[in-house]
């Protein structure tokens, strides 16, 4: 029997650094901050399975537990993430579990709007919280709007769109189409247009059409695309005059089917991307925070197609030399039917905005009041999470 309020899961204590002064940000530093948005909703229970929760085994196929990399007695890490495991061991990576944005519905677009805009409701798609955070940092600062920040990819992620100036960069060989498009189209045609479905199926079967269902995908697959983006961004940000702040989005996390195989690819790509940042930033990695966040989590139970459907709480990752790592930060809500959100999803217990606020204040020296009003409008009641960096 686990009491969710009393079960402290962080290996170094949940709020161990709560007594630190308001800001740990010190003058003279030259920090870097990278935001990676995982579009499609990462299954936090698959990325960081709570193997110590007695109710977990009944929800998920057994493969997760056996192969997972142990983090502490309670949580383990998906086996596709050895680099994150290494960083965690070195105190340079932390996991915030059962976290979520204020969005409580299940639309990707709206969820991404909330995650990236920083507003607590969808419909604000003009500027993102990261851009407004940059503006709040002041003109004189190396990390403020005087320095161009970096947008990676052909599409500027909403999180970094806004008035603060941006440098855009995209790998030369971006994947032509989203590999998840063909499988979705196959289902659509399957119900409405059998003739087109036959043609599409033939294209997928013969490798002519890239599909997430098709291992013959060219160009290094989704993992290769992620690593290319990370390598390029790290090369730019590793320069003394390079951008200090960057954002990028990795697509493909909507694992309704064949989740284990797909997450092995995707989490592997994310894991290699973190290693690419560590390597590419060199000495600057010591003063870097990478935040990895997704719009929402997925159902606690697997569905009938070895995948999971749209849910609520999930995991966020913090990596970088500046992170006070080696911890899973969670106010664990439990997995019993009555503890699940609407009886189906992991219940959110940590506001993702609090995580961002904590990093922004302590790593970048952001003003808390502006975080609670300009960066995250309507977030006066949200307090920065202490001791993340």
């Amino acid at each position, binding site marked *: 029997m686990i009491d969710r309020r009393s079960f402290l899961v962080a290996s170094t204590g949940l709020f161990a650094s709560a007594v630190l002064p308001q800001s740990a940000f010190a003058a003279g530093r030259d920090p870097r901050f990278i935001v990676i948005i995982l579009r499609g909703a990462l299954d936090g229970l698959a990325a960081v399975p709570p193997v110590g929760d007695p109710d977990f085994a009944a929800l998920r196929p057994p493969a997760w537990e056996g192969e997972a990399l142990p983090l502490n007695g309670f949580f383990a890490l998906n086996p596709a993430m050895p680099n994150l495991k290494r960083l965690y061991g070195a105190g340079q990576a932390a996991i915030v579990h059962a976290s979520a944005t204020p969005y409580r519905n299940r639309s990707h677009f709206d969820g991404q709007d909330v995650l990236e805009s920083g507003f607590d409701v969808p419909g604000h798609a003009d500027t993102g919280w990261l851009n407004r955070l940059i503006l709040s940092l002041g003109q004189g600062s190396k990390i403020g709007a005087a320095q161009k920040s970096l947008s990676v990819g052909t599409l500027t992620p909403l999180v970094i769109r806004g008035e603060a100036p941006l440098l855009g960069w995209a790998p030369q060989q971006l994947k032509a189409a989203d590999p998840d498009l063909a499988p979705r189209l196959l289902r659509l045609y399957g*119900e409405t247009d059998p003739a087109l479905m036959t043609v599409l199926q033939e294209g997928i079967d013969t490798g*002519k059409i890239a599909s997430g269902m098709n291992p013959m995908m060219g160009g290094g697959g989704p993992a290769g695309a992620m690593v290319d983006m990370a390598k390029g961004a790290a090369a730019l940000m590793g320069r003394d005059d390079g951008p200090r702040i960057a954002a990028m989005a990795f697509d493909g996390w909507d694992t309704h089917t064949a989740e284990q195989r797909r997450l092995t690819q995707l989490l592997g790509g994310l894991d290699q991307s973190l290693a690419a940042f560590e390597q590419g930033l060199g000495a600057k990695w010591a003063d870097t925070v990478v935040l990895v966040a997704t719009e929402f989590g997925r159902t606690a139970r697997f569905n009938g197609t070895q995948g999971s459907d749209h849910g609520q709480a999930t995991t966020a990752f913090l990596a970088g030399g500046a992170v006070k790592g080696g911890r899973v930060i969670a106010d664990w809500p439990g997995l019993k039917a009555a503890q699940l959100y609407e009886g189906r999803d992991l219940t959110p217990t940590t506001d993702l905005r609090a995580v961002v606020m904590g990093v922004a204040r302590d790593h970048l020296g952001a003003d808390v009041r502006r975080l609670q009003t300009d960066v995250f409008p309507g977030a006066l009641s949200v307090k920065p999470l202490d001791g993340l960096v």
Partner: protein
Amino acid sequence: MSPDTRAAIAFSRFGLGITPRGLGAASGEAREALLAELKSPPTLSMSLSDAQRDLGFSSALPPTPELLTQLAAYNRARKERREIKAQNQTPAPDIPSMAAPDMAGKQPPLMDDQRLPQAVSFAEVAARLKVWGDARIGFHERLVMFWANHFAVSVDKGLPVRVLAGAYEREAIRPHITGRFRDLLLAAERHPAMQVYLDNDASIGPNARANRNGKRGLNENLAREILELHTLGVNGGYTQADVTRFAKVITGWGINRSGQGDGFRFNPNAHEPGPQTILGKTYADDGEAQGIRVLEDLARHPATAKHIATKLVRHFVSDQPPPALVDRVSQRFLETDGDLSAVYATLIAAEESWSAPRAKLRTPQEYVIASLRALDTPIQPQRFLQTLRVLGQPLWQPPGPNGFSDLASVWATPEGLNNRLDLAYQLSERLAERTDPRVFAEERLKGLISETTRRSVALAETRPQGLALVLLSPEFMRR
């Protein structure tokens, strides 16, 4: 059928596709809206580009005689350059291919060999992109495309057709598509682009004065294709003897390269003397008029009416043209002596034209234009040309004189679908920032959207994916 569905069919089956302006233009009486478009055809216009100014163009879309003069000067300059190169023994520079990947929209430096044709084709394409974007429904432009494909020329033939293809469409096709078929037929066959494409400018009567030494002779290419493709159809009842005699009739038809007139020239010295009998009727030799009279008879032949009606119904309505509809359209063609506007009115009036299942697949050209209209996004001419090339329907470059197919089975291939996936995704990525896919689906698929598509789009993982699913949905791909 709901009024929205009817309007949506007007836009997709008969037009260029819906735009952010919605279905309004066809929301009343859709038939009237389509026919009204034919009464006020759009004007192609374009301002001179720097490249054209350098080449001394009088206007961005110059008439054929001016292009022929340009072409002659250009060929002289190329010849000189080749001679200088040969003397200097330096290797010729590579000529960049139009097909080369050009994703960044950057142009490779223009080599001299590309300068004239590129300057011409970019202006021609830019002028059409504007008209296609502005068209309310686009029935007029769909008919222009239909007839330009019926009377196909291909830029594959070489530099002259490459330079003239746009002017051919502007001068021979566009002004005549709402008039009489006879005028369209004559304008198309007599245009220098067609004369070059099907080799008639080189055809000489065996007994003509220009062939006194007996070394040159007849070329049947144009005569055969007029009978087989442009008028009677392959089973239209003509014989090989008819082809040969008709070829003799149109000897002497060719190109006026003096920069004067409309570019057509009749050269009596190349014309085969004597009467010729075609389809049982004897045509006295009255020079140029002999061919005109044959074409006039072909234009009103029942086989031609049937052939044109079949192609129109197959293009607009169904890959399996309903015979009753073909008969009605064909009958109207004959009754009105080929009044094309009357023919279209009959096609549009038929209930089958609206109730037929939306089973045809948009051709690549229709698909690209419809996508650009739906997303309300501009495209550079070179990018547009490259996109059509990748999708397998390069502009004015069909594989043969029979033009591009419009059968769904021809375009519904794994490769073609893959290219549409890539295109839809690339366009969607560019436009995703400000577009909610759910709204986009409801507005652009209005009157057509299925529950399945609605759900697929709402469940899409990202905005670009959601937009791409709309563009790839059966409702958008088919018409």
